[in-house]
């Protein structure tokens, strides 16, 4: 799928030409199409994230950018140069591998210096640049250690330093935080962004973890079955998903099928039998009247109350069938008379609050802007 002209125009950087251009890239392994006609523009100095489940083609796309896989069709341009057929050892691209791929027989210093040695730099220059980058990733004093003497977080920094020391035009990161434990991840996420802003290197990150994508990326491309479904900022992807799949993949969502019964430029009304009523949405939808659409409502945008709310539209009654208290929020499952179970999450703002109880009958309502209508 190539992005619509309007979308491409919107994605075009202010500074002019895109820095990395992926043009109708396809990769086939025998009969299997791993990546299908993907076109993508990445801006200079941007953190771009390819997000998708396993087998969606994101890693294959990354490996084509690195030069490890030759595309079946299409082209890759970096800074205006066609690098489609350039071997990995001649590309101005470096990669941080998921397993880090540190050379076990070399010290931290030798690992980091490896790339510079290949460029034939002088010993003094190599030593200076290695020391600089190790200071940047806060690994001074570790230069004589071997990889097996390092913790997971330290290995990750060495891998990052080794990839950054060559000052690549493009840094590829394959699940950069995947091998770290949860505490370390959160810490490292912010460090990674800081480092990127300091150096201004363009990052392309591959991940299956939506939280990782949301925190790291300026823009996200959601991939599925070898295609990019949607490209946008984390907010775009979360608040304005363009398809059922994207809405469902990012975060938690209530999805229901419906039919467009009222179509005005400033609002639409959708008949949703699963919810046992109509859903009023305060913005227009580009779909023909009577079209079958999906309605997506995020759990945190739905409110629960004991008294019937004042508003006319988007009000339903139901029974609480499950409560999960998570501290910051409480998640509820509410069964509607139709049998549909709605997910609702509510922030716990007050400490002394009379909380809703299991099996309690409640009113459900949401704002006219809360629901997203998707046709795909």
């Amino acid at each position: 799928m190539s992005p619509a002209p309007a979308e491409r125009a919107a994605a075009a950087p202010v500074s002019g030409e895109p820095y990395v251009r992926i043009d109708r890239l396809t990769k086939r392994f025998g009969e299997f199409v791993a990546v299908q006609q993907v076109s993508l523009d990445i801006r200079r100095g941007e953190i771009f994230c390819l997000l998708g489940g396993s087998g969606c083609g994101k890693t294959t796309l990354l490996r084509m950018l690195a030069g490890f896989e030759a595309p079946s069709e299409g082209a890759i341009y970096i800074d205006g140069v066609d690098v489609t057929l350039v071997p990995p050892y001649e590309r101005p691209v470096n990669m941080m591998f998921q397993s880090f791929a540190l050379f076990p027989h070399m010290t931290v210093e030798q690992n980091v210096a490896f790339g510079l040695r290949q460029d034939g730099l002088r010993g003094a220059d190599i030593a200076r640049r290695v020391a600089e980058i190790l200071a940047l990733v806060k690994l001074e004093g570790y230069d004589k250690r071997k990889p097996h003497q390092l913790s997971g977080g330290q290995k990750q920094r060495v891998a990052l330093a080794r990839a950054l020391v060559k000052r690549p035009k493009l840094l590829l990161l394959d699940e950069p935080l995947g091998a770290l434990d949860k505490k370390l991840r959160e810490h490292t996420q912010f460090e990674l962004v800081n480092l990127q802003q300091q150096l201004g290197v363009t990052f392309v990150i591959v991940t299956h973890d939506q939280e990782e994508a949301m925190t790291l990326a300026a823009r996200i491309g959601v991939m599925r079955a070898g295609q990019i479904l949607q490209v946008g900022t984390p907010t775009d992807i979360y608040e304005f998903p363009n398809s059922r799949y994207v809405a469902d993949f990012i975060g938690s969502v209530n999805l229901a099928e419906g039919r467009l019964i009222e179509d005005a430029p400033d609002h639409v009304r959708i008949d949703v039998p699963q919810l046992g009523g109509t859903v009023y949405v305060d913005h227009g939808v580009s779909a023909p009247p009577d079209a079958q659409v999906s309605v997506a409502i995020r759990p945190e945008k739905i409110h629960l109350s004991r008294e019937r709310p004042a508003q006319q539209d988007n009000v339903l009654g139901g029974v609480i069938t499950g409560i999960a208290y998570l501290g910051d929020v409480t998640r509820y499952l509410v069964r509607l008379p139709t049998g549909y179970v709605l997910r609702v999450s509510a922030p716990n703002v007050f400490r002394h609050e009379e909380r809703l109880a299991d099996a309690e009958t409640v009113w459900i309502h949401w704002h006219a802007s809360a629901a997203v209508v998707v046709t795909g």
Partner: protein
Amino acid sequence: MNSRVQSGLLGAVTRLTGPGRSAVGRWFVIAVPYFWLALFFLVPFLIVLKIAFSNVQLSMPPVEPVVVWAGDKVLQLRLHFSNFAFVFGDRLYIAAFVNSLQIAAVSTLFALLIGYPMAYGIARAPGTWRNILFLLVVLPFFTSFLLRVYAWMGLLGRNGPINGLLLALGLIREPVQLLQTDFAVYLGMVYSYLPFMVLPLYTAIEKLDLTLLEAAADLGCRPTKAFFRITLPLTKEGIFAGCLLVFIPAVGEYVIPALLGGPDTLMIGRVVWDEFFGNRDWPVASALAIVLLAILAGFVLLLQRVQSRGQEA
């Protein structure tokens, strides 16, 4: 993979014996093979050691006893160091040792040069092919070693197929002497011991993480250079193991030089045989065996030290 297999075995043994009975169980599991080794390796070695310090005598066995009753309740230990002096004093024996070490070293080198690409090819072959190729390496063991060496005699003979082929191709006018040459000994050695080189190399290459080579390429390293900077150093253990497995038996090899080598192919295995069965000089033969053992043990220790130092650095 070696260490993984070892820890796996150890784990299995621990599980078999269980934590409660572990002391007795572990002792038993270790004791059986050690008892076997003591009975059939250590005891014969001690007998050989004893004979090496003895003297020739016309009797059966043809050696003087080392421990003798010297008259009045006196137990006498009679050690003759003359055998060792004789061994080190005779140029023939020295030459045999040097020659054996040299033939073994050259054979090991060729086995490595042939075995490494083989092992590399097998380790990188697609799944099903890998198993077939691996089986082909082990296949010669299904036939007796002696038979295979005899087969080479037939192949290398004056009227053998190799000479026949060379004649048919017009490369030679008349059959060349292939059998009973040093060339035939090298050929037999490399052929016979190649699997012992390939197997540990295969294990080492197979466990090499391929993303390391991708990382090297990504950092600007060309494939040939990456082989010498990454693949070779990381398969060093396989190279050491393979070289030891070929070199050690090759030094003391008797059958191959006896069957394929010429009268002037001087190897220590043959000399020991001649001393033992030809001259019936058991003490000198035993002394030769002891010296050979000492040399090989020295090599093993040296390699081990080099290897452990490599791991530390």
